[in-house]
């Protein structure tokens, strides 16, 4: 730096020289000062040369004027163009290494920042509090499991004591026991000599050892066996995996066929050897059939089959393929011969079904997934049981026609059959909707049979249909009447009063008509047993709609039915003796009985009326706020308009349904009984949110009347037991085995680990470590 500075000053000098040189070349004016100027110039040049010699010596400008004092502060950095730095000032004239340390120190001092202001008081306190809280909570969380245990424990006993150790079996206690008396010592000596067990009486150490050991050969053999089994398994697995990966379809079909053949052979063999096992096999086949019937696998409904149907018109192969598939389906779904149906009735029904529906139709329906043929059969039986068949029969002729047309077609064009089948199936599916809809009608019929009987006169229109069905019906009815006669027998034996002997079951139309003529009274007699039987039969039919039906049935309970049903009479060995009566007396008796019976009708009507009144009375009443004459003319004979009345009528919401809604023969008082309510709980205690929960906890009776003495004592144990005259001191760590011994401490912790939160767990681990 000094060198550069010297160079600059030199340059500046030379410039000056040049400037000064100019007047030299041109002689201007001065003459007297010439010598002086020469001298100064020389001086400057000398200086410049001196400064060139490398020694960086600052030469102060010489003052031309003399002054007494020269200030040491009169230092300028003139010419350098830089600020004066402290270090420059400190720099010695000669650079010396001893000052470097000082410089470093100075640098360090400069780099250090200023000390921050202390925090204000509140903040400091907050921090302190936080720290303290953390510490104490950590310390206190140690107690959490204990507190929880005490809260949930059945009983707390104060003053707190250490937990007693568990009862040790007497053998363990005895290990610390020593023989003292000479007799004991002698005995133990003997025992020890013979290596007899002292505590465990049965096994000597030798025995135990022998039990534990296992012979080497045995172990080896076992190991080898296991190894072989494992190897075999792995081979087999590998093979199976390889075979599974084979993509060739042909290979798989061949494999399947082979398997099927094998199975067939085995089955035949089984049939010969072991019929029972064969039967089981048969069941399996049956199950496979069921699966097939459930699935749509070979039903020409897949993608492939659909494409084939399109092709079938033109392609013979496709047609064949489709036929094959259908055949396969048929084959799979064919029912194997099982034991013949037991009941005759069903057979008859089946016959009828076949009459109604031709075979070809059946086949189609078997394929079709819509109406299940089984369901159809059932449904036909149910309709048969019901008195009218017309609604069900209606759709059937249509089906019939289609099938006929199909039969006609068959000879003409065999190729189109398949296509037809497809179309038909679709149409059938559509039909199945209404078909199913008719079912409920059929089912409802028997329920309403009573009303039908009442209305038998009005049935003239439907007589034709009934007559048609009569033949079929009579079979059933005859069977029924047989049963009915059987039931009637005892009653006839006992010479029932006239009323009860009346024939009630009118099955055929003729009977119905006759009954109708006889009068309305008889119509009320509902053959309940018939109803019941029908119900039973229906339940055996076992349709899915059965429960719903039952529900409906419940609603339709009629008081008339309830009371006027003829119940079977009791066979009694000892008939109460009655005084023998004269004939006219008997007549009177009968009259009285009839009177009694007729009186019953009044009873029912009265009761129904009473019930209606009770229902009305219990209903919440609407509030009418109309003011006559408000906003319109009022007066005698004028009523507020209907619109206004509607506006000002406040309807009260309907309450819950009455308990006796579906019970026509019962009136249950809905009024609230306030007396027991005074003793009931009306505020839910703390941890419960729903009354059902709390009710469950108070359902078990506590009293000694309902419990054994021990259970009673346990149920009434006090939650907190204190000892009179003892101070209950706050709980201490020693009380709960903390710190007293490491083992018990651990055990406490382990027992309650589950209930600890994760947070606490972590803390606990820390403290344990």
């Amino acid at each position, binding site marked *: 730096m000094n060198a550069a500075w010297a160079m600059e000053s030199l340059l500046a000098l030379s410039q000056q020289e040049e400037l000064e040189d100019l007047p030299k070349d041109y002689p201007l004016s001065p003459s007297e000062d010439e010598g002086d100027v020469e001298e100064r110039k020389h001086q400057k040049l000398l200086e410049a040369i001196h400064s060139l010699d490398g020694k960086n010596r600052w030469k102060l400008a010489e003052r031309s004027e003399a002054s007494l004092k020269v200030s040491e502060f009169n230092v300028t950095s003139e010419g350098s163009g830089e600020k004066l730095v402290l270090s420059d000032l400190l720099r010695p004239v000669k650079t010396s290494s001893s000052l470097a340390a000082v410089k470093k120190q100075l640098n360090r001092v400069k780099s250090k920042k200023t000390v921050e202001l202390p925090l204000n008081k509140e903040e400091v306190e907050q921090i302190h509090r936080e720290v303290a809280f953390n510490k104490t909570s950590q310390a206190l969380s140690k107690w959490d499991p204990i507190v929880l245990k005490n809260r949930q424990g059945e009983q707390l006993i104060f003053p707190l004591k250490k937990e007693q150790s568990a009862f040790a079996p007497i053998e363990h206690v005895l290990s610390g026991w020593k023989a003292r008396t000479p007799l004991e010592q002698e005995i133990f000596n003997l025992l020890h000599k013979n290596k007899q067990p002292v505590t465990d009486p049965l096994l000597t150490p030798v025995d135990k050892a022998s039990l534990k050991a296992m012979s080497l050969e045995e172990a080896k053999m076992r190991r080898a066996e296991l190894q072989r089994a494992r190897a075999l398994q792995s081979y087999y697995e590998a093979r199976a995996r390889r075979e599974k990966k084979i993509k060739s379809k042909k290979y798989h079909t061949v494999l399947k066929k082979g398997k099927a053949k094998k199975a067939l052979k085995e089955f035949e063999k089984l049939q010969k050897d072991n019929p029972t096992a064969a039967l089981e096999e048969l069941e399996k086949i049956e199950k496979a059939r069921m699966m097939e019937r459930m699935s749509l696998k070979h039903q020409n409904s897949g993608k492939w089959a659909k494409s084939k149907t399109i092709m079938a018109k033109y392609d013979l192969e496709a047609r064949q393929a489709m036929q094959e598939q259908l055949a396969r389906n048929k084959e799979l779904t064919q029912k194997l011969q099982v034991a013949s149906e037991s009941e005759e009735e069903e057979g008859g029904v089946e016959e009828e079904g076949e009459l109604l529906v031709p075979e070809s139709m059946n086949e189609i329906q078997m394929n079709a997934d819509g109406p299940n043929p089984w369901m159809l059969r059932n449904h036909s039986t149910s309709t048969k049981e019901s008195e009218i068949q017309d609604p069900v029969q209606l759709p059937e002729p249509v089906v019939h026609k289609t099938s006929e047309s199909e039969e006609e077609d068959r000879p003409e064009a065999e190729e189109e059959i398949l296509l037809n089948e497809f179309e038909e199936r679709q149409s059938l599916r559509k039909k199945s909707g209404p078909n199913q809809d008719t079912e409920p009608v059929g089912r409802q019929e028997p329920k309403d049979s009573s009303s039908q009987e009442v209305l038998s006169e009005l049935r003239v229109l439907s007589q034709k249909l009934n007559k048609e069905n009569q033949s079929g019906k009579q079979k059933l009815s005859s069977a029924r009447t047989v049963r009915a006669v059987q039931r009637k027998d005892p009653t006839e034996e006992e010479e029932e009063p006239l009323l009860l002997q009346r024939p009630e079951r009118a099955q055929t139309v003729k009977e119905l008509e006759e009954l109708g003529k006889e009068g309305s009274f008889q119509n009320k007699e509902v053959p309940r047993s018939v109803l019941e039987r029908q119900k039973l039969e229906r339940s055996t039919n076992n349709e899915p709609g059965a429960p719903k039906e039952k529900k409906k049935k419940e609603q339709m309970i009629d008081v008339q039915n309830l009371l006027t049903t003829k119940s079977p*009479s*009791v066979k*009694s060995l000892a008939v109460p003796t009655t005084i023998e009566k004269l004939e006219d007396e008997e007549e009177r008796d009968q009259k009285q009985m009839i009177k009694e019976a007729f009186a019953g009708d009044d009873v029912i009507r009265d009761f129904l009326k009473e019930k209606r009144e009770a229902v009305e009375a219990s209903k919440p009443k609407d509030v009418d706020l109309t003011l006559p004459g408000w906003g319109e003319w009022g007066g005698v004979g004028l009523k507020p308009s209907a619109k206004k009345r509607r506006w000002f009528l406040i309807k009260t919401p309907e309450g819950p349904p009455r308990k006796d809604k579906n019970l026509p023969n019962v009136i249950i008082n809905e009024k609230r009984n306030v007396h027991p309510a005074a003793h*009931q709980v009306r505020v839910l205690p703390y941890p419960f949110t729903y009354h059902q929960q709390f009710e469950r*906890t108070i*359902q078990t009776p506590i009293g000694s009347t*309902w419990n054994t003495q021990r259970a009673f004592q346990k149920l009434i144990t006090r939650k907190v037991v204190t000892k009179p005259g003892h101070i209950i001191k706050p709980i201490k760590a020693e009380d709960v085995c903390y710190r007293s011994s490491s083992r018990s401490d651990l055990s406490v912790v382990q027992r309650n680990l589950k209930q600890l939160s994760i947070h606490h767990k972590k803390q606990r681990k820390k403290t344990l470590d």
Partner: protein
Amino acid sequence: METAPKPGRDVPPKKNRLQAKKKKPRRYWEEETTLTAAGAFPGPSGNKKRNRELRHQRPKNTNFPKKSRISRKPQLPKKSRELRNPEPQRSLSGAQDPFPGPAPVPVEVAQKFCRIDKSKELPHSKSKTRRRLEVAEAEEQETSTKAALSQLLLVEEPGFLEGEDGEDTAKIRQADIVEAVDIASAAKHFDLNLRQFGPYRLNYSRTGRHLAFGGRRGHVATLDWVTKRLMCEINVMEAVRDIRFLHSEALLAVAQNRWLHIYDNQGIELHCIRRCDRVTRLEFLPFHFLLVTASETGFLTYLDVSVGKIVAALNARAGRLDVMTENPYNAVIHLGHSNGTVSLWSPAMKEPLAKILCHRGGVRAVAVDSTGTYMATSGLDHQLKIFDLRGTFQPLNARTLPQGAGHLAFSQRGLLAAGMGDVVNIWAGQGKASPPSMEQPYLTHRLSGHVHGLHFCPFEDVLGVGHTGGITSMLVPGAAEPNFDGLESNPYRSQKQRQEWEVKALLEKIPAELICLDPRALAEVDVISLEQEKKERIERLGYDPEAKAPFQPKPKQKGRSSTASLVKRKRKVMDEEHRDKVRQSLEQQAQKQEKKAEPTRARPSALDRFLR
């Protein structure tokens, strides 16, 4: 309600009548060999013997030499004690406990003592609540097992008649039974020939030891019928309509022609209650200490005999009341009326709790079984019906009797006796809790006069019948509960014990106003006032303190929780809730539509309008 079985304090030891059949319980300290040698029970024999203890021995000179009709139920298989540990613990002495572990408890027996209805589903509960519920269930489990274990102490088993294949038990006459049973039991069958004082009403005391009967013509007597010791005999010189013991055999209520009188066991008239006049029937509710009277004037009066106050006098508004019975399960009074209805009454309500239309004619007799499940009624239409009292009140069974039953009575084990003219028929069910099957009578007996009163003796297989010819005590095997609660109703109690019991019973008296159809109503929360209080609280506070707090989004990192995003998040949650609601309502609608769609028919017929 099932009460836990308890041994009596001093039940006299029963004579071991089943020496051959009944195995002596093997004690674990006994060896197998001692079992066969073990002979009789220790203890005195020759005490009173109950007739249900029918011995399986017949004299050889009877008319039916081959048949053994009277048999006992085969011994129940011993409780499975086979569940033993493969290696039982050994003690120091080398002897081992043959029955290690806790005693096995038969599940179905323990189930009988369980009261918590677990079929009801509970709303979701918080952990603290769940803990309480668990505790309650554990308690129930423990108490029920303890009760089941102590059933071992019920040594007696009910007996019954069993016909040999195809034989009708109803054909067996009383004489045959008497011949077959031991002397002590045979002595329980007797006839009192009292023709001159008209048809008799009778009543057994609650312990079954004492019998009181009153004839129409004023004859009133009480006796210890087992020993046949007459306690008192008077003539009240007035028509006696009904007679009934009060809580103990020391007090006796007699419904006389005009007023109700109360006598003690010496026959001294203690009270004449004029507020109960023209009483036709009497009932006594033992746990409430209420004497219930039904009068000709149509009033039903409840008289508290412990304080002598009339608790309630209810007007039944159904004319003369002469059919009355008590439901032992819930202490509700059943009245039969002439219009074929049976009405159920409690002193707390002015109106009947329920009315059931039972018969077309008037109701002649009503009886309710001890479990309160079945009610038998007979009416003027000659029918005998059995109703289910558990909420539905529908007839389960109905039979037409040749002459209708004038009197009905249920035994402790559910046998139903009906008096028809001069014949008594008894029907039995399959078990205790099943209704009597009316197919065939279990027993039949013809009396010398028309039946006027029927009462099964508690704890004895005896049916007392009062009729025009006097009193008949019939033997009905299997009628009564074989084991009695020694602390509650002990037939062998001394006077001191009776006094003790009386005090305790009085202390445990149930207030009359607690009688209602469901006796367990006290174990339920009063939901109506609970909701009312909750509503009031909400009104008071201005907000629902238990309502679910609205969703408040948590502040997220800087930049994420701008007001817009907060609103968005809120909206998201709200929409989700709304969607849930819509989904639920849609599901409900679909269900409703399904329900509606099913009954629609294909084609409405013109005749449909006539369908009812």
